[in-house]
C-alpha cells in the first residue's frame, strides 16, 4: 500500500475542479495549473524512484484486496509514461499561455486540460480493466470538448466524427468487458492473467483478445487510424500537440498491457495479427506523410507511422524489442509534442499551412528553423538524439524474432519519415520568401521567443535522453522486465 500512487490522478482532478471557480482570473488559472503540473512531475519522479528501489507500488482503493476491490498499480512502465506525460503537459501548457487566446482561456481551457491529464494518468495507473474503460472515458470526454473548443466550422465537423468513432469503440469495449467477465469472472488484470493461464488461451478467449485488439487499435490509431488525420489537425496547436503526444499513447499502453499481461499465451495468433497491423500502419502512414503538401497533415501521418513502429516492438515480444519500444514510446511523446508545437509556430508565422506558399522563413527566424531541424532529425533517429537507441533496439529485437520483412518496412518507413519532415524544413525555411505576406513582423519576435522556449526544453530533453542512455537503461530494463515476466506484476498485486 502506498498512498502516493493515487496522487497523479487526484492532483489534476482537484486542480481542474478548483480552476472552474476562477473563470475570470486567467492569471490565477495559469499559475495554479502550472503549479499543479510541476508538482505532478515531482510526485511521479519520486514514485518512479520508489518503484525502482522497492518494486511495484500498489494501492487498494478503500482497503479492498485485489480480486474484489479496485487496485491502482504503479509499475516502472506506467511510471515512466506518467512522468513523460507530466513533462509534455508542462511544455504544452507553457506554449498555450502565449498561443491559445483569451476567449478559449476564459471558457475553461485550463480545467479541461487538467481533466485530460486525470484520464491519461488514470489509464496508466489502474490495475483493473473496467477502470481502464472509465479513465479512457474521462480522457475522451475532455478531449471531445478540447477538439470542439473555440467552435470553428472545421473543429465542429471533425469533433462530430471523432465522438462517433469513439462512442462506437467504447460500446465495443463494454461488450468485450462483458464477454471477459462472463468467461473469467474477474476484472482485475493480475487475476485475469492468472485465470487465462489456467484456462488456456484459445477459442472464446482468442475472440475476446481480438475484440480488445480492435478497440485499442481504434484508440491508438493502429491500422484503424482513418479518424486520426482529421481530428488531430482541427484543434489549435497546443491542443493538437497534447493529443499527438498523449492520446494515441494511452491506446498503445493499453495494447501493451493487455497483450503482455493477459493475452500472451497464443502469440502465433494474436501477436502475428498485431505484427501485420503494425506493418500496414507503417506503410499507410508513410504514404500519407509523403503524399501531402500540408504541414499539419504531414505531422499527423508521422503520428500514425510511429504507432506502427512502437507496436511492432510488442509483436516481436523479445527483451530487446520491448526495451526499444518503451524507449521509442518515451522519445516519441516528447518529440511529437515538440514537432507539433514548432509546426504550429511555423504555420502561425507563415499564415498558411500549405508548403507551396511558404519559404525563406530562416532569414527572419533562424532559431525556429534550427530547432525544427533538430526535432526533425531526432524524429528520424539520427544518433546523438533520442530516437536512435530505441530504433536500434527495436530493429535488433525484430531480427532476433526473425521478422525480417517488418524490420525492412520499419527501416524504409524511417526514411520516409526523414523525407517528409525534411520536406517541411526545406520548403518552409529555405528558398525565396513565400508569396503570402509574412505575419512574423506583426506578431513580433518577442512573442515567438515565448513560444520557442517550451519547444527548446523538449528538444533539450531529447538530447539528454540520447546522450544519457546509460542513465536511462536501468529504468527501461525494469519496465521491459515486468512486461516480459507477468508474474512480477501478478505477485506484486496479489501478494497480500
Amino acid at each position, binding site marked *: 500500500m502506498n498512498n502516493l500512487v493515487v496522487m497523479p490522478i487526484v492532483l489534476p482532478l482537484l486542480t481542474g475542479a478548483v480552476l472552474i471557480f476562477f473563470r475570470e482570473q486567467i492569471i490565477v488559472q495559469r499559475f495554479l495549473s502550472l503549479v499543479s503540473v510541476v508538482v505532478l512531475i515531482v510526485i511521479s519522479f519520486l514514485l518512479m524512484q520508489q518503484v525502482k528501489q522497492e518494486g511495484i507500488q500498489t494501492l487498494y482503493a478503500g482497503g479492498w484486496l485485489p480480486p474484489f476491490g479496485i487496485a491502482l498499480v504503479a509499475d516502472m512502465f506506467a511510471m515512466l509514461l506518467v512522468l513523460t506525460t507530466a513533462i509534455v503537459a508542462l511544455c504544452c501548457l507553457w506554449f498555450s499561455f502565449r498561443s491559445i487566446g483569451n476567449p478559449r482561456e476564459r471558457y475553461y481551457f485550463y480545467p479541461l486540460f487538467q481533466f485530460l491529464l486525470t484520464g491519461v494518468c488514470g489509464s496508466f495507473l489502474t490495475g483493473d480493466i473496467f477502470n481502464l474503460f472509465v479513465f479512457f472515458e474521462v480522457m475522451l470526454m475532455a478531449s471531445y470538448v478540447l477538439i*470542439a473548443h473555440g*467552435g470553428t466550422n472545421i473543429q465542429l465537423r471533425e469533433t462530430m466524427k471523432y465522438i462517433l468513432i469513439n462512442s462506437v469503440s*467504447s460500446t465495443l469495449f463494454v461488450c468485450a468487458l*462483458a464477454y471477459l*467477465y462472463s468467461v473469467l469472472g474477474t476484472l482485475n488484470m493480475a487475476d485475469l492473467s492468472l485465470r487465462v493461464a489456467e484456462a488456456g488461451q484459445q477459442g472464446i478467449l482468442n475472440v475476446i483478445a481480438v475484440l480488445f485488439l480492435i478497440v485499442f487499435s481504434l484508440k491508438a490509431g493502429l491500422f484503424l487510424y482513418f479518424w486520426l488525420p482529421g481530428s488531430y489537425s482541427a484543434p489549435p496547436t497546443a491542443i493538437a500537440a497534447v493529443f499527438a503526444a498523449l492520446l494515441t499513447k494511452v491506446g498503445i499502453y493499453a495494447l501493451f498491457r493487455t497483450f503482455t499481461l493477459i493475452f500472451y499465451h497464443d502469440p502465433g495468433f494474436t501477436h502475428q495479427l498485431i505484427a501485420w497491423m503494425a506493418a500496414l500502419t507503417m506503410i499507410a502512414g508513410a504514404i500519407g506523410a509523403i503524399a501531402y503538401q500540408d504541414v499539419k497533415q504531414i505531422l499527423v501521418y508521422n503520428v500514425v507511422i510511429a504507432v506502427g513502429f512502437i507496436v511492432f516492438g510488442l509483436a516481436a515480444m523479445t527483451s530487446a524489442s520491448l526495451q526499444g519500444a518503451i524507449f521509442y514510446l518515451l522519445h516519441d511523446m516528447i518529440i511529437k509534442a515538440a514537432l507539433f508545437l514548432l509546426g504550429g509556430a511555423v504555420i502561425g508565422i507563415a499564415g498558411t499551412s*500549405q508548403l507551396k506558399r511558404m519559404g525563406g522563413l530562416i532569414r527572419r527566424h533562424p532559431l525556429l528553423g534550427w530547432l525544427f531541424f533538430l526535432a526533425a532529425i531526432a524524429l528520424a533517429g539520427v544518433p546523438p538524439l533520442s530516437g536512435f537507441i530505441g530504433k536500434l533496439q527495436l530493429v535488433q529485437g525484430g531480427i532476433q524474432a526473425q521478422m525480417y520483412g517488418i524490420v525492412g518496412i520499419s527501416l524504409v518507413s524511417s526514411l520516409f519519415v526523414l523525407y517528409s519532415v525534411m520536406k517541411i524544413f526545406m520548403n518552409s525555411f529555405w528558398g525565396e520568401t513565400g508569396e503570402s505576406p509574412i505575419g512574423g513582423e506583426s506578431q513580433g519576435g518577442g512573442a515567438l521567443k515565448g513560444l520557442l522556449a517550451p519547444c527548446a526544453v523538449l528538444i533539450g530533453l531529447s538530447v539528454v535522453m540520447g546522450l544519457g542512455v546509460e542513465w536511462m537503461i536501468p529504468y527501461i530494463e525494469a519496465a521491459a522486465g515486468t512486461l516480459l515476466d507477468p508474474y512480477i506484476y501478478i505477485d506484486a498485486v496479489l501478494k497480500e
Partner: protein
Amino acid sequence: MELLMSVAIGILFSVGTYLILSRSILRIILGTGIMSHGSHLLILTMGGLKRGAAPLLSEQATVFTDPLPQALILTSIVISFGVTGFFFVLAYRSYRELGTDDMDELRGEEHE
C-alpha cells in the same frame, strides 16, 4: 430467458448500426444511444440473470446474485448518458453554425 435477451441485444445492435449508417446527425446520435443500451444489456446477460437473493449477508440465502454487473452497468450508463448529452449539444451547435444536419454536406474544404 438468456436466449431471449441475446436476441433482443442482437436486434438493438442491428437497429443501432442501421441508424449510425444514415446521414442525419440526429439519427446517428440515437443509433449510438441504442447501441450502448445493447451493450449494457449484454453485461447484464453475461453476468447471469437474477437467480439468487440480494447480495446481503443478513439474508441467509444459499444463492446470491452477482452485484458486480449492475455496478458496471451503472457506471457505463452514466458515461454514455454524458457522451450522448454532449453529442446532442454539439449537433445543435453545428446545426446553428453550419446550417445543416446532413453528414454528407459537412465536407467542405479539406485542408484549408
